[in-house]
């Protein structure tokens, strides 16, 4: 019998079943990766194993079997859970040192020499040794996650459960987190269950479990999983076929295709799974714009844009130019200054220093922006939708805001609903819909007035791979058909590939700005964009 055996575990939330009769097993020293869309049941399974939520089924840990949080209480000294969310379990007003003391105390650890040496080692590994006096609230996202991790490791847990510890963390911190984890599990023989949104990370795990709709639909090592989808992966087809999903240089099909085979990636798992469930990517068709306008060659020019929050510099003299018909990716970890930058562009934050021109017009006051409002579309990080209005009502409301005549508005809404594939959901409330659908209809809301430029603030965060693929298709079609310019922020480094040009921000400073092709040329060794950015991050220390 394996050290950790989970059998037929189900988690229910009121009417909803989050995890559906899942089984898995793991041995000491294993790192098990959980991948899958938001709401696929990864977190629920982790909570159940950690004994913080009611569940059905059984979990056996080293011969001790439990069926409920109460029964799990007995082995909680052995378990550590790091829930999802940056710095979620940290207290803003306590320092790094105080956190370590607090977590040691509530775990009743004897503070002997052995412990102190271990603590020093953890601090050293995480690179937090110099910051022991700093309050958690003043740490960067990456540091918060490293602190959370070493707090979780303090009592030498034998079962470590980490729920998306690296989401939104900069690439360098992600590598460091991984190194700590890898070292600890080798030394301590810890079982680690780790969920992640980054496929590069999943590839390093001993075993990967793919979740979909509360079930584990595929499992195995990275190589095994990739092998399993190799027969279905081809070079991208030019034309659209109903039974084929094509995305970013590759096509996926269950039936054999007359095309060159391609080397699959883990992401392909999601597409193959979608095909197996008879879900395909409907083609995105964007109609022509109703009115054509002449557009200046430079849509947005920011020079030395700076924003202070007290002593903290959120954006430090940033120069960015957005050209006509260009998709510009603004990349960086949480807290790098992406959202602040977009908010300055939109006038939601006052510009402290620097100059800005939009569509050839210098922006000096709020009045300068007013006439430009009809030319700019914006989708915020959390989709500013009204949850007590249906999709249709929301869209009509946004059309009214832009003073679009009702008949014209209804016509456009109908068109977008069909083109962007949310027509079946028109009379549903946003809260009832998957994030991916909300994302698409937020885009529709921003397109109703046919803007010349779109500002998108982390529209893909938390959205599953398939929905993200669809989303990028929409953006590319928009660029193609409308000649629209798009500024998009994201913390997924892999999404850089889909942009024309990328700007990389780190702690409020611009550290790279070039076209995708040029960046690859400059870094011939890089296998992926992740590697390119890593080199910038490392160079900047």
């Amino acid at each position, binding site marked *: 019998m394996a050290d950790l055996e989970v059998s037929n575990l189900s988690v229910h939330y009121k009417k909803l079943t989050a995890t559906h009769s899942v089984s898995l097993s793991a041995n000491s020293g294993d790192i098990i990766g959980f991948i899958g869309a938001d709401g696929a049941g990864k977190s629920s399974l982790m909570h159940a194993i950690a004994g*913080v939520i009611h569940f059905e089924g059984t979990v056996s840990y080293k011969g001790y079997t439990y069926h409920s*949080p109460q029964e799990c209480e007995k082995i909680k000294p052995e378990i550590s859970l790091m829930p999802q969310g940056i710095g979620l*379990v*940290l*207290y803003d007003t306590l320092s790094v040192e105080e956190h370590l003391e607090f977590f040691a*105390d*509530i775990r009743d650890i004897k503070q002997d020499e052995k412990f102190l040496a271990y603590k020093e080692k953890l601090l050293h590994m995480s690179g937090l040794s110099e910051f022991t006096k700093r309050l958690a609230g003043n740490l960067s996202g990456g540091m918060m996650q490293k602190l959370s991790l070493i707090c979780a490791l303090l009592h030498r847990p034998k079962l470590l459960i980490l729920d998306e510890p690296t989401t939104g963390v900069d690439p360098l911190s992600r590598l460091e987190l991984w190194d700590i984890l890898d070292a600890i599990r080798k030394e301590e023989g810890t079982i680690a269950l780790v969920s992640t949104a980054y496929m590069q990370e999943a590839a390093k795990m001993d075993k990967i479990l793919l979740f979909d709709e509360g079930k584990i639909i595929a499992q195995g090592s990275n190589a095994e999983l990739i092998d399993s989808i190799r027969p279905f992966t081809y070079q991208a087809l030019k034309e659209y076929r109903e039974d084929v999903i094509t995305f970013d240089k590759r096509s996926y099909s269950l039936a054999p295709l007359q095309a060159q085979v391609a080397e699959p990636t883990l992401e392909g798992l999601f597409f193959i799974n979608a095909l197996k469930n008879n879900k395909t990517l409907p083609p995105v068709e964007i109609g022509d714009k109703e009115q054509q306008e002449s557009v200046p060659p430079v849509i947005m020019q920011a020079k030395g844009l700076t924003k202070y929050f007290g002593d903290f510099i959120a954006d430090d003299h940033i120069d960015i130019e957005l050209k006509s018909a260009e998709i510009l990716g603004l990349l960086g970890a949480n807290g790098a200054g992406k959202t602040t930058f977009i908010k300055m562009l939109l006038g939601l934050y006052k510009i402290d220093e620097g100059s800005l021109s939009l569509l050839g017009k210098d922006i000096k006051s709020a009045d300068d922006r007013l006439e430009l409002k009809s030319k700019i579309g914006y989708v915020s990080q959390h989709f500013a939708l009204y949850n007590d209005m249906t999709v249709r009502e929301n869209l009509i409301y946004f059309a009214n805001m832009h003073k679009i005549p009702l008949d014209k508005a209804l016509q456009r809404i109908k068109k977008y609903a069909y083109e962007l594939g949310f027509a079946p959901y028109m009379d549903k409330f946003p809260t009832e819909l998957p994030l991916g659908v909300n994302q698409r209809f937020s885009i529709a809301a921003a397109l109703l007035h046919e803007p010349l430029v779109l500002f998108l603030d982390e529209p893909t965060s938390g959205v599953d791979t398939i929905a993200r693929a669809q989303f990028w298709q929409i953006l590319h079609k928009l660029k193609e058909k409308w000649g629209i310019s798009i500024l998009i922020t994201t913390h997924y480094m892999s999404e850089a590939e889909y942009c024309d040009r990328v700007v990389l921000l780190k702690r409020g400073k611009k550290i790279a700005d070039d076209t995708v092709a040029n960046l690859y040329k400059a870094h011939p060794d890089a296998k992926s964009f992740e590697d390119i950015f890593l080199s910038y991050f490392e160079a900047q220390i």
Partner: protein
Amino acid sequence: MRINIIKAYMLKEFKELVRTRLIVMVYLLPSMILILFGYGIRMDVSHARLIIIDNDQSKLSQTLSSKFEHTKYFDTVERHMSETQALREIKQAKKDAILIIPSSFEKNLLKGEKSELGIFIDAAFPTRGTTIETYIQGTILSMAKEVLAKKGVAQKGMITINSRSLFNQAMRDEDAIVPGLIGLVLLIAPAILAALLIVKEKEKGTIFNFYASPLSKNEFLAAKLLPAFLLHSLNIFILFLLSVYLFEVPFRGSFFLYWLASELYILVSLSLGMFISVITKRQIVAVVLTVIITLIPGFLYSGIIMPISSMDGASQIEAHLFPIMYYNHIIYDTFLIGEGFASQKNLLYLGILLLFTLVLFSVGKLLLKKEMK
């Protein structure tokens, strides 16, 4: 219960309370409520603004005017103006009442004929209006009595009233209101703090440190409620000092009883706060709910506005459902009466407060789950 763990958790709570400045609220809120309400609620009337229009200008009419001038109840001015002009002053809220003395007031009176005084009162606030009316009538009657006595008119067989007010001889508002406010303050403030301390962790997500660790429910609750209990215990003394020295409320009873009842009452409040924190997820909801649950019944049934004994039916029953009635009974006793432990009722009410604590705490603890909902 492992004392070391509780101590470590409490230390964290104190650090957070100080660093988030919540500690300021812990001490500012109770004193602020006491001071604001203590000065703000006024039932009796003093310095009512009165115009006297003396159309007689006789000796008698001047005697009457001077009666109104030498009292703290009225700020009197004598004016020569028409009735309409004077009424205008009331309409503009510049005056509260008018007294019109007719010409030949003295003459008629000496002749033994009827003489009518005109009184106009702003009765927009009925209670205040009635009170002013009574004062004016009383002043006039007392003057009439004096005048008659001087004239040698016999007073035989007349009833004289010899009244003595008990417990609040000076009939000061402060004495009646301030002790009642202590019951209100100590119901609201500890409950808010207790609710916040727990819900804060839920809202932030740090509650996982409790869920996922071997920390027991008792240890967690002790670590959360003890700091609130200790901090608010100091408020018992602060509120006492404010009442006795700032508002000059007499203290006639047992301080030990006051202290004991207050500590017990804080426990009731903390248990209530804990109960609320178990059923809410957001700090703002917890605070609003706590305020609604404590402030409204607390104010209605504190005995400040109306004594419980003069309530009837439903309100009488409702009053008995809330802890403030029992506590305030003891508080009024310690401040104004002084029966102390000799009173059976005080002892019974102490028992009832203990019962409130036990019931609320048990229900709260039962509902508190070491797992997500």
